C-alpha cells in the first residue's frame, strides 16, 4: 500500500455495532485515543433493525428494544467525544496494522498501533445449504427481510414459511404476522430449536405458528416468484426420509440457518481463525494471533445475548488500550483451553496466566441439549470448577467465571484447561 494520505492512530475499532461501541467506549475510558469506523450511515449495527424487546436484561435490568440498547451506548460514545467515521468501510487490513479505508470521495490509509475487529457476522445463505429446486424471487435471509420490514417499510411477501429456528427467524415469524402476513410454519433440521426458549414461546406459540423439528426443505418451486416449498422429515443423519415430503404453498421463504462471523479482513491480515466458530483464535484479552489486533462480539463468535457482546467487547477495548500504552503483558500462548466432551468450542482459545491473575471468564456452547446438566473446567484430573445447570442448550452460550484460585492451580498444573459438559 502506498496511499498519498496516511493517518496515524493509536486504536482503530472496526465496526459500530454493539461490540465496536462498547470496545471504543472502554478504550477511551482507559485513556486511549480511539477512532471508530462504521460502514453504515448510522451507529448501532444490526440492533437498529432489531426493534423487538428483550435487550439489556442483564446489563440494565430492562427489556429494551435494539435501537434503545444501542442508543444508550451511542449517547455514551458521543459524551466521550470519540471520533466516528460513518459511511466508511475498511477495504483491507495488513498484518502490520495498516488499513485501507474507503468513503465517499476518499481513499485513505490509516496506520494503527492497535485494532479491534468488531465487524459482526453475516447470515448463511441458500447457496451454503444447497437446497434443490428453482431460484424464484421471494427467498430471503431472515435478517434481510427484517431490514426491509423494519428499516425500509417494505413487505417481502404475504404467505411465509421459515427454514431454521434461529432467533431472527422466530422474531420475523411474529413480526410478519403482526403486519398481516400469514406465517405457515417454521422448519428446523435439528431435533431441537436453535432459538431461545423465550422466542419460541412469544413468537410462535403465542401466534399459533407450528414448529416442525427434524424437518428440512427439499425443494423450492416457482420459475418467477416463489410458489411453494416441499419439506421432508430427516433421519438421525439429517438426511430426508423418502415418503415424508409435504408441499407448503407460500410466496416467501425466510432462511434463519446460522450466522458466520465476518472475518475476511482478519483472514487477509493473517489472523489465525477457528474452523469451528469462524472467528479468531484469541487469548483471555481477546487478542488474536497478531499482536495488537483484538476481536470481539459476533466477529469473534456468534452470541445469543447482546449484553454478553458488550461485556466481551469492553474486555477487548480495555486490553487494546493497555496494549497501546505498553501495559499489556502478552507473548507466548500460555495455557491451551480445549473443548472436552459435550462442548463445541470454548472462548478464549488460550491464555497467559500472570503471577497475580484476575478472575477470568470462559464462554462456550454445548453440543446437545441436556436437563440437569453439569459443566466442568478441569486441568488433567483436577477439577477447577463445576457448575450445575438445570438446562443446557446449544442455543444458549454458557459463561463460566474462573476464580483467581482456580487460575493459580491451573498455572501450577502446567496442563491444558479442558471444559466439558455432561
Amino acid at each position, binding site marked *: 500500500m502506498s496511499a498519498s494520505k496516511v493517518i496515524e492512530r493509536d486504536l482503530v475499532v472496526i465496526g459500530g455495532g454493539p461490540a465496536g461501541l462498547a470496545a471504543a467506549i472502554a478504550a477511551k475510558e482507559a485513556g486511549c485515543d480511539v477512532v471508530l469506523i462504521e460502514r453504515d450511515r448510522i451507529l448501532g449495527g444490526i440492533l*437498529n433493525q432489531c*426493534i*423487538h*424487546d*428483550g435487550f439489556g*436484561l*442483564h446489563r440494565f435490568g430492562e*427489556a*429494551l*428494544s435494539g*435501537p*434503545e440498547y444501542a*442508543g444508550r451506548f451511542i449517547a455514551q460514545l458521543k459524551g466521550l467525544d470519540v471520533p466516528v467515521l460513518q459511511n466508511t468501510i475498511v477495504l483491507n487490513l495488513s498484518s502490520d496494522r495498516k488499513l485501507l479505508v474507503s468513503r465517499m470521495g476518499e481513499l485513505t490509509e490509516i496506520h494503527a498501533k492497535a485494532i479491534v475487529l468488531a465487524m459482526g457476522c453475516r447470515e448463511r445463505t441458500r447457496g451454503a445449504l444447497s437446497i434443490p429446486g428453482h431460484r424464484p424471487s421471494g427467498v430471503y435471509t431472515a435478517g434481510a427481510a427484517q431490514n426491509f*420490514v*423494519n*428499516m*425500509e*417499510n417494505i413487505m417481502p411477501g404475504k404467505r411465509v414459511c421459515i427454514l431454521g429456528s434461529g432467533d431472527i427467524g422466530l422474531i420475523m415469524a411474529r*413480526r410478519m404476522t*403482526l*403486519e398481516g402476513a400469514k406465517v405457515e410454519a417454521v422448519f428446523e433440521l435439528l431435533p431441537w430449536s436453535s432459538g*431461545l*426458549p*423465550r422466542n*419460541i*414461546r*412469544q413468537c410462535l406459540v*403465542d401466534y399459533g405458528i407450528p414448529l416442525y423439528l427434524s424437518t428440512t426443505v427439499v425443494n423450492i418451486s416457482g420459475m418467477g416468484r416463489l410458489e411453494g416449498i416441499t419439506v421432508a422429515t430427516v433421519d438421525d443423519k439429517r438426511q430426508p426420509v423418502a415418503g415424508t415430503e409435504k408441499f407448503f404453498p407460500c410466496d416467501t421463504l425466510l432462511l434463519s440457518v446460522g450466522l458466520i462471523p465476518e472475518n475476511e479482513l482478519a483472514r487477509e491480515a493473517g489472523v489465525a481463525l477457528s474452523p469451528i466458530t469462524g472467528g479468531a483464535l484469541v487469548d483471555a484479552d481477546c487478542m488474536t494471533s497478531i499482536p495488537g489486533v483484538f476481536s470481539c462480539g459476533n466477529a469473534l463468535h456468534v452470541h445469543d*445475548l447482546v*449484553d454478553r457482546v458488550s461485556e466481551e467487547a469492553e474486555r477487548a477495548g480495555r486490553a487494546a488500550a493497555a496494549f497501546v500504552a505498553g501495559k499489556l503483558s502478552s507473548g507466548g500462548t500460555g495455557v491451551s483451553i480445549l473443548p472436552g466432551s459435550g462442548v463445541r468450542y470454548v472462548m478464549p482459545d488460550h491464555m497467559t496466566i500472570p503471577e497475580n491473575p484476575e478472575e477470568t471468564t470462559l464462554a462456550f456452547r454445548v453440543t446437545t441439549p441436556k436437563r440437569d446438566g453439569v459443566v466442568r473446567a478441569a486441568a488433567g484430573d483436577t477439577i477447577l470448577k463445576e457448575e450445575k445447570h*438445570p*438446562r443446557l442448550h446449544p442455543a*444458549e452460550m454458557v459463561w463460566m467465571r474462573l476464580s483467581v484460585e482456580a487460575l493459580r492451580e491451573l498455572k501450577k498444573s502446567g496442563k491444558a484447561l479442558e471444559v466439558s459438559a455432561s
Partner: protein
Amino acid sequence: MSENRIKGEFTCVVCPNGCFIEAEYLEGGSEGPKLLSLAGNQCKRGETWVRQEIETPMRTISTSVPVHGGDFLLASVRTAEPIPLAKVQDVMAEIRKTSLNAPLSIGQVVLKNPAGTETEIIVTRNVAAAG
C-alpha cells in the same frame, strides 16, 4: 362447567435464563384458573410468571410507525409496559392508524392507553429531520 386438570409446560421469559417450568393447574373453575404445582423455576419470579401465563399472559409488542420528513421512513415503537396478549391485535390496529413527524427521540410518547390498555406506545429510535 367442569374443571379440567392440565399439565402445562412454560418457558419463563422474565430473564434470560428462560427457565423451563412444568406446572399443573385447574381450568374452568368458577374462581378462574388455579395453580396446583410447579417445578423447574430457578426463582420466585418463575412462579409469578406461570400464574400470569395461566391467568392473563402479558406481552410487550414492537412495531413501526411511518415518519414524515425524517431520515428514516419508519420509527420503531413499542409498548412501554407489557399488555395482555389478547389485546395485541387491538393495539396494533390503533398503532396502524398513526403517523409521526420528524424529529423524534427515544421515549417520546406516540399513543396513550391504546385499546384501553394502561400503557403508552413509545418511540424507540431517534429519527432526525431529513437533511
